[in-house]
């Protein structure tokens, strides 16, 4: 499993420098119905079980790195992430505030308090990003 995790880190994850992006990416590799992770390339080099374990391991690692970030760092990572998605910051902030997608990006068996800490930090970071958005100019009345 260690070899598969190392392979994943040196190939796929090497191109994803921010832990927030890694967390989102790795969470998207997980089947919501079974909780198992799938990665065809990794499974073909190793086995499906080993690939699943490696992905879970890297997911836990990304989560732990993000929890360890300061609020300043989290805000900066979110700004970078918004840039990389090519979404308008206003739409992004509105969607994340409404849907709270980060709640499903947490690895299984995460300690509830740690998860709560990250959710709370995301909430504050989104409020900071929202406050930084340029105000919309008033529409000229007809």
């Amino acid at each position: 499993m260690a070899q598969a995790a190392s392979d994943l880190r040196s190939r796929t994850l090497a191109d994803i420098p921010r832990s927030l992006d890694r967390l989102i990416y790795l969470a998207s590799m997980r089947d919501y119905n079974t909780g198992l992770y799938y990665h065809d390339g990794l499974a073909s080099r190793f086995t499906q079980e080993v690939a699943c374990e490696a992905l879970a391991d890297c997911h836990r690692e990304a989560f732990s790195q993000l929890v360890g970030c300061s609020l300043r760092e989290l805000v900066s990572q979110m700004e970078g992430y918004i840039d990389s998605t090519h979404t308008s910051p206003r739409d992004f902030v509105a969607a994340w505030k409404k849907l709270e997608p980060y709640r499903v990006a947490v690895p299984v068996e995460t300690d509830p308090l740690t998860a709560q800490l990250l959710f709370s930090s995301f909430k504050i970071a989104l409020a900071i990003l929202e406050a930084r958005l340029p105000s919309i100019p008033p529409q000229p009345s007809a």
Partner: protein
Amino acid sequence: MISLIFFLSVGLLLFSSLFLLARRNTRPEGSSSALVEARQALRTLQAGLLPLELVNRVFAEQDWEYVRSETPRSIHELFLDERKGLALLWLRQVRIQIRSLQRFHRGAARHYARLNPRTEVELALSFAALMGACRALQFLVFVAGPYAAPRMVGVVANAANRACKISEQSLGFLDKARLGALGHASDAAML
């Protein structure tokens, strides 16, 4: 009429006593499930609640400095509310797990004569001091916010870690004692 009221009162008293007795936890305090519960509480404390990185993150003053210096006032209140909620949640969880350990040790001390009395007394004092410190910190955080007593956070976390270590030693002994008892039981069964 007076005797009717008297007998009804006696009946009600007996019924209440029976009800309270039935509601009492009937699980023996020295049982395996109590030991498993204590182990679980210890694990939750050591792996989930007391790691230094987590405690430092929850009470990180650098986050507050960042919010205070670089964000508008509207964010300040949100930040303090969120961190206060987290701090109180952390303290509540620590107290719940410590109380669970305390309950177990109180029961175990009655069941296992070979437990080191000095360790158990030390543990009882640690638990009592810790619960008091948790209560005081909870009050301070509730009244004055998450950054009211940073030193006390460290004191509580260190005291909890110390109590966990002493408890772990005791639980280690109890595990051996239980395994020994199971070994004797299986030997007897084989004979």
